[in-house]
C-alpha cells in the first residue's frame, strides 16, 4: 500500500433499505419477496391513469425510528417530491421521493473499527418508493447482449428508505464497519430484513481521493453493485488505489458511475445517458405535507428498542471486554434475554456471556434448534454457572449438564444428578481411590520419587477413571502429591 502513502480517501455511503411493512408505501398491495411476477400490483403501483398515492403511516413511523436510532433530527414538517426520470421499471416515470426536506437529517453513527470508535455523520434519511424489477433476457444473460427486457412490478412501490452518510469515511475497513453497524441497527429496529443477497439492503459508495492535508475534495466517483460487506470493502479499496494510480501516473479522475465486478475484482465505467442528472424535482401535488409533531415524535421514540451501541456499553459496564460485549450484542435476541435474566439471577456476567456465545450457541447450531425453542432459562444458566464455580460439576461435566438441560431433562441440578455428574469433593472418598491407584501402580510411584514429576498427570487420570470422572481434580491433585511425598 506504499503507493497510497500521503493520500487520503473521502468516502460517503448511500444505503437503500426496503421496509418490511405489510403493504406498500402508497397503496395496499402486499410487500412480499419471491411471488409470481405482477401479482402484487394495483392501479397506484402500476402507474395506471387516474391512480393516486396515499402514504403508509407505519412507514413514516419506521423511518422516524431509523432517524432517531441514527441520532438524527426529525423534521417537524417534511414533504414528498417527484423525481423525474424515465426508466422501464419505474411505472410513473417519476419516483415519489424527498428532496430538500427529508424526514430525518443531521445524525451520526458510532462505528468500532480495529478497536477505535469512529463517528460517521448521517446527512439525511428520506422516504421513497422502490422500482419494479427488470430481467434482461438474451445471449448468456449479459445486459449488453439483451434482446428484450421482462418487467415485474411486484417490488414497485415498496417503501424504501435512503440513508446518506456524510463524507466522513476514510478507509475501506471503515466503510465496511459502517455498513455492518447500520445493518445491525436496522435489524434491531425490526423494520427490514436487510438481506443483501435479496436486495432489501443495498449500498452505493461515493469515493474521491486527495493528498493528505489538501483542503478540497477530489473528483467523486460513484460505485455500484456491491452485494456483500466483503465486496463493499474490496470495491472501496480497489477504487481508492485506482484513483491514486490514475493521478500519480499523470491522469485525472473523471466524475462517473462505476460498476463493481466481483469476479474480476475491479470497477468498470458504466454507460451513462446524457443529461440524466436533470431530475426536475418538484413538490408531489398528489400528497400533503407530513407533520410529525412533538407528541407523535415522543410516541415513536418510546417504541425504540435498545440499540447495538447502547447494548455494548451496557455489557461493558457489566465487566465484559469489548470483544465479548460485541459478540454478545450481536447474538440472537432470545439468547440475549437468557443472558440478561441470568445476570439478574446473580450469575457472573462474564461466565454467562461465555456460555451463551460459546457452548449454548454451538449446541443450538449442532442440533439445528432455534434459540426461542430451547428450554434454557436465565435462572438455569445462573445455576449452571454457580455449579461450575462451586465445583459441584467439572467444566467438562458442565457441558453434559447443559446438553441435558437443552434436551428438556430439567433444571441443571436435576440433570447433574440424573446423569450422575456431581463431583466427589469428599476428601475421604477420594483418598480411598488415591490409595487404590497408588497400590496398583508401584512403578509410577517409583518414577515419581525418582524425580519424574509429570507422572502425576497419569496418576490423576487413573484416579479420575476410578471415580468415573466425578472426583474434583484439584482435590485429587492435592491428595496425590501429599501421599507421594
Amino acid at each position, binding site marked *: 500500500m506504499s503507493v497510497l502513502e500521503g493520500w487520503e480517501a473521502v468516502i460517503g455511503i448511500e444505503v437503500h433499505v426496503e421496509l418490511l411493512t405489510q403493504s406498500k408505501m402508497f397503496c395496499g398491495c402486499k410487500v412480499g419477496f419471491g411471488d409470481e411476477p405482477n401479482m402484487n400490483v394495483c392501479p397506484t403501483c402500476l402507474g*395506471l*391513469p*387516474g391512480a*393516486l398515492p*396515499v402514504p403508509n403511516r407505519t412507514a413514516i413511523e419506521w423511518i422516524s425510528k431509523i432517524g432517531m436510532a441514527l441520532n438524527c433530527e426529525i423534521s417537524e414538517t417534511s414533504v414528498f417530491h417527484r423525481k*423525474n426520470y*424515465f426508466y*422501464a421499471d419505474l411505472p410513473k416515470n417519476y419516483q415519489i421521493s424527498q428532496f430538500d426536506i427529508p424526514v430525518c437529517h443531521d445524525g451520526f453513527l458510532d462505528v468500532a473499527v480495529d478497536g477505535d470508535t469512529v463517528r460517521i455523520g448521517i446527512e439525511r434519511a428520506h422516504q421513497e418508493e422502490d422500482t419494479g424489477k427488470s430481467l434482461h433476457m438474451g445471449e448468456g444473460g449479459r445486459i449488453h447482449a439483451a434482446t428484450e427486457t421482462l418487467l415485474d412490478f411486484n417490488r414497485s412501490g415498496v417503501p424504501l428508505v435512503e440513508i446518506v452518510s456524510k463524507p466522513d469515511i476514510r478507509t475501506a475497513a471503515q466503510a465496511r464497519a459502517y455498513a455492518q453497524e447500520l445493518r445491525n441497527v436496522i435489524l434491531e429496529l425490526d423494520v427490514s430484513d436487510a438481506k443483501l443477497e435479496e436486495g432489501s439492503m443495498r449500498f452505493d459508495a461515493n469515493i474521491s481521493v486527495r493528498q493528505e492535508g489538501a483542503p478540497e475534495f477530489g473528483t467523486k466517483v460513484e460505485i455500484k453493485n456491491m452485494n456483500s460487506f466483503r465486496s463493499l470493502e474490496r470495491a472501496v479499496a480497489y477504487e481508492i488505489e485506482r484513483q491514486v494510480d490514475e493521478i500519480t501516473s499523470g491522469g485525472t479522475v473523471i466524475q462517473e458511475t462505476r460498476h463493481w465486478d466481483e469476479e474480476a475484482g475491479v470497477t468498470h465505467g458504466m454507460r451513462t445517458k446524457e443529461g440524466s442528472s436533470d431530475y426536475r424535482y*418538484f413538490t408531489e401535488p398528489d*400528497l400533503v405535507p407530513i407533520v410529525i409533531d412533538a407528541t407523535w415524535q415522543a410516541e415513536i421514540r418510546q417504541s425504540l428498542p435498545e440499540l447495538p451501541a447502547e447494548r455494548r456499553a451496557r455489557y461493558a459496564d457489566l465487566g465484559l471486554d469489548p470483544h465479548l460485549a460485541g459478540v454478545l450484542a450481536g447474538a440472537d435476541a432470545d439468547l440475549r434475554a437468557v443472558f440478561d435474566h441470568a445476570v439478574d439471577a446473580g450469575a457472573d456476567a462474564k461466565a454467562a456471556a461465555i456460555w451463551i456465545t460459546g457452548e449454548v450457541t454451538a449446541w443450538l447450531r449442532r442440533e439445528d434448534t432455534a434459540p426461542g425453542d430451547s428450554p434454557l432459562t436465565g435462572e438455569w444458566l445462573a445455576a449452571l454457572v454457580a455449579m461450575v464455580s462451586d465445583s459441584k460439576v467439572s467444566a467438562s461435566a458442565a457441558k453434559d449438564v447443559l446438553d441435558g438441560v437443552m434436551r428438556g431433562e430439567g433444571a441443571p441440578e436435576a440433570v447433574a444428578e440424573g446423569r450422575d455428574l456431581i463431583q466427589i469433593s469428599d476428601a475421604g472418598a477420594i483418598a480411598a481411590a488415591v490409595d487404590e491407584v497408588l497400590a496398583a501402580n508401584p512403578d509410577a510411584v517409583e518414577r515419581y520419587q525418582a524425580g519424574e514429576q509429570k507422572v502425576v498427570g497419569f496418576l490423576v487420570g487413573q484416579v479420575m477413571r476410578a471415580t468415573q470422572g466425578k472426583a474434583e481434580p484439584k482435590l485429587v491433585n492435592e491428595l496425590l502429591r501429599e501421599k507421594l511425598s
Partner: protein
Amino acid sequence: MTAADLTITQAAAGLASGEMTSTQLTEAVLDRAAMTEAVLHAYLTMDRDGAMAAAAESDRRHARKDPLGPLDGIPIALKDNMCTHGVETTASSKILAGYRPPYDATVVERLRSQGAVITGKTNLDEFAMGSSTENSAYGATSNPWDPDRVPGGSSGGSAAVVAAGSALGALGSDTGGSIRQPAALCGVVGMKPTYGLVSRFGLIAFASSLDQIGPFTRTVTDSALLLDAIAGFDPRDATSFRGEYPNFSDAIGRGVQGLRIGVVKEFSGEGFEPAVEAACSSMLDRLSATGADVVEVSVPTVDAALSAYYLIAPAECSANLARFDGIRYGLRVSGATTEEMMARSRAEGFGPEVTRRILLGTYALSAGYYDAFYGKALEVRALLQADFAAAYEKVDVLVSPTSPFTAFKMGDKSQDPLAMYLCDICTIPSNLAGHPGISIPIGLDESGLPIGFQVMAPALGEPVMYRVAAEVERLATFDARPELAGVTA
C-alpha cells in the same frame, strides 16, 4: 319536448311518483343522442346496453319503493377522462385508444351506488388541455347553439350533451375553467368545487394541484343535487377534504338580501365582448335591486394568474403524462431499445397541444430555469391566494363574466395557443386558489349565443355561492334551448 328535456329534479319527481320509468327516461335520452350526435359528436363512447340495464335495475328499485336516492334512474354522462371499469377511457388521446381501465373512478362508484344511469363518455380536449374541444384525437365537438362554433373546453362534450338533452347531467373536470367556460358557451350550469371536495381518484390527471371534478346541469338546483352526490371524503385521495361536508342544496332559494357581492374590476374592458359586459352589468343591477350590496373589488394579481397557470399546469402535466410510455397500456410504436420505443410512442400518441405543454413544463422545471419560472409561479399563486383572502374580508362572493366572449368559430383560435389561453382568464384564478366557482347562463348575445355569469366564493363557500347562483338564475329567467338542426325544438 320529451323526457330528455326535463331537469334532474323534475325527472326524479317523475320517477319517484311512478309517472315514468327510468327505462322510458333513458330511452328518451338515448333517442335524443341518436339524433344529435350526428351533428355534435359530443360522445366518444355510448354505453347503450349498460345504460338500459342500469335503468331496468333502477325501475325495479323504484317499483319496490326503495330507490337509492334522488339520482336513482337519472341518465348522467361522464367526461372521458374518468376511469370506467371495462369501458373504453381515452382522455381523447390516441395514446389511450382502446384502453379499458381495470377499475372505476371514485365519482363513478359514487354515482353507480346512488343508482345513476351512466350513458357514456364525452369528448374533451386531449387530456383536458384546451378551451374548445378541438384538440381531440377523435374529432371536435360542435356547439349545440351553432354547429360551426366550438362548445368551449376542455369538457365541451359534457357541456354539449347537457345542452342538447342527450344526458340530464354530466360530470366534467376543471383545471383552469374546463367546466365553467364550456358551460357558459353552451348555456348550461357548470360548477367547479373547492379543491378536495370531490375525489380525484380515477380522474386521469392533467395538473394535480388544480384538477377538480364538478357537475354540468341545466339548473342551479340540479347542480347542488349532483354535487351532493359526488362530494365526500375519499381515503384513496390524499388531498381529499376530511372535514364535515355541507348540504349544498340547503342554501338555495334564500335570496341575496344583505349579501355583499364583489365585482372583479380586472375582468372587464379590453378583450371582453360588449354583449357579455352588458349582460353582466344588467345582472348586477338586478342583484343590487333585489337587496344585494354590489361593490367593485380589485384583485390585482389576477393579471399574473394566467402566466402562473401556464407554468404550473404544464409543469405538473409533464410529470403526470410521463406514465404514458407504451409499456403497461396504450399505444406502442416499436423501437430498438426501450428508450427509443418510449420516445416514438409518446411523439406519435400525443397531439400538438399536449406535446407543447409537456415541453413547456419540462423546460419550466429543468435545471437553471426552475427558480425563474416554476418557483416564481408558485409564489405568484400564494400572492393570489393572499389577494383573494383580502377580498373575501370585504365581500361574500366575487362575480365576473365566465368567459370574455361567447362561442367562437371552429379554427378561429386553434392555431394561436396564446389567444386560446386567454379564454380562461376569468376562471383560472379560482383553480390557483382552490376556490369554488360556478357559471350560470344569463342570456344570449346578438347572434343567439349564450352568455355565462360566474360566481366565485372562498374555500368551502359552496353554500353562499349556490345561494347567489340560484338568485342569478331566477333573475335571468333564461329558458332558451338550442334548436339543433330542428331535432331538439
